[in-house]
């Protein structure tokens, strides 16, 4: 049982499903257990930093919540449903930019914005027009015609953040977002993410704000953003502190 803050069971009893919930979730890659029986509940509106050394299972945890991989055992739910059915509410940023090297930042963002627009009513955002705004928000010039392959590492990271922000997600998953940034750029990214949490949610009945789950080695950088911290080691949860995250029942 992890130590840390007392468990707030009342939150679990409400009708509002958690932004993400893992029940005894394990992930095996061959014989290697990347995640071992992790049970966590991330409340909607929480902002959580996941800490841990390399190989602790942080990225695997995020990829499970994103629906990019499925658990070998146990269950993972986002907003009470199977993660892949909730793709329109989730955005995932990896430590790689997830952008085409041959296209400019704006071309990349417009392309991915088009993929967010679907015919299924509220499922999807009308965010095509926000690509330029998203680039400006991360400090990049939308008129910059240079292909992303010619960007510096920091610029690629910021363009990648713009890609996920323009999707207007309720649940934002960030895997090592500060890995290629200097301290000042990291600080600006944290400010932007704090601001992002206050953006109003479009097309949803929920009253809570947005949820962020972020992994990093640099806890001090993410500190102003976090209202909960989960520490992992060897695929298991070591401790939970703060509000908004609980061990799942």
């Amino acid at each position: 049982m992890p130590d840390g803050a007392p468990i707030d069971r009342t939150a679990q009893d409400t009708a509002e499903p958690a932004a993400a919930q893992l029940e005894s979730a394990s992930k095996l890659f061959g014989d290697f257990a990347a995640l071992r029986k992790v049970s966590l509940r991330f409340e909607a509106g929480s902002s959580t930093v996941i800490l841990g050394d390399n190989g602790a299972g942080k990225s695997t945890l995020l990829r499970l919540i994103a629906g990019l991989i499925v658990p070998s055992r146990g269950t993972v739910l986002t907003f009470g449903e199977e993660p892949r059915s909730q793709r329109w509410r989730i955005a995932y940023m990896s430590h790689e930019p997830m952008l085409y090297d041959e296209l400019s930042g704006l071309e990349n963002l417009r392309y991915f914005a088009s993929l967010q627009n679907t015919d299924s009513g509220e499922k999807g955002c009308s965010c095509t027009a926000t690509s330029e705004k998203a680039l400006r928000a991360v400090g990049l010039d939308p008129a910059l015609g240079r292909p992303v392959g010619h960007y510096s590492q920091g610029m690629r990271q910021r363009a990648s953040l713009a890609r996920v922000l323009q999707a207007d997600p309720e649940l934002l998953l960030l895997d090592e977002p500060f890995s290629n940034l200097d301290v000042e750029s990291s600080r600006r990214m944290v400010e932007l993410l704090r601001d992002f949490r206050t953006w109003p949610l479009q097309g949803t009945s929920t009253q809570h704000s947005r949820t962020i789950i972020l992994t990093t080695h640099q806890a001090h950088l993410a500190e102003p953003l976090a209202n909960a911290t989960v520490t992992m080691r060897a695929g298991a949860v070591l401790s939970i502190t703060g509000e908004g995250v609980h061990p799942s029942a």
Partner: protein
Amino acid sequence: MSYLGHVLVHLRKDLQLEWRSRDSVNGMLFFALLVVVVFSLAFDPTAAMSRQIAGGILWLALLFASTTALNQAWTREQRNRVLEAQRMAPAPPSALFLGKALSNLLFVAIVEVVLAPLFAVFYNLHAVGQGWLMAAVLPLGTWALVCNGTFFAALGLRTRNRELLLPLVLFPISIPALLGMMQATTAILTGAFEPGPWIRLLIGYNIAFTAACLLLFDTVLNAE
């Protein structure tokens, strides 16, 4: 955005990527030209013999050449983990497949446009049969190659030897289509027999495999 809109978005993106890199078309073109030249040197055929073997050589050259491009088609998506962003998007996965297959069709079509006149010169060809039917055989045959090729290239994405795996899977499964394209082309060039049944075989093959690829692509894309 409609399903067709998503297909066009993917197609436009692939054309943009190819326009800027020119990896696929250049590689395919030189490979196909080499095959045609090497075969012409190896056989030194008469005009009558050329018409007998040209169908086979043309389609084998296109098959080998398109295999080089089909492998690259998904490599672009793997670079920088772009494919994961695709998987996270709410747009239908089959639209991604269809957009990519259509872009590959256009790339191979460009190679065919350049290759066809050179091929006619090298092999001293003119159609004895209904030459206009090549306008049906070429797109049908090309679609059979690129549709399956795009699908099986995606299937091999997570394997270590994907460059080897693609021809190992694609060539056997393309045998009925290859037979159809080669026989139809030979029938048109020689006028010795009717190409109709072979064209119908190609149409049936394309309908069956296009439907299977569209239905199964979501599973292939999200397989671990």
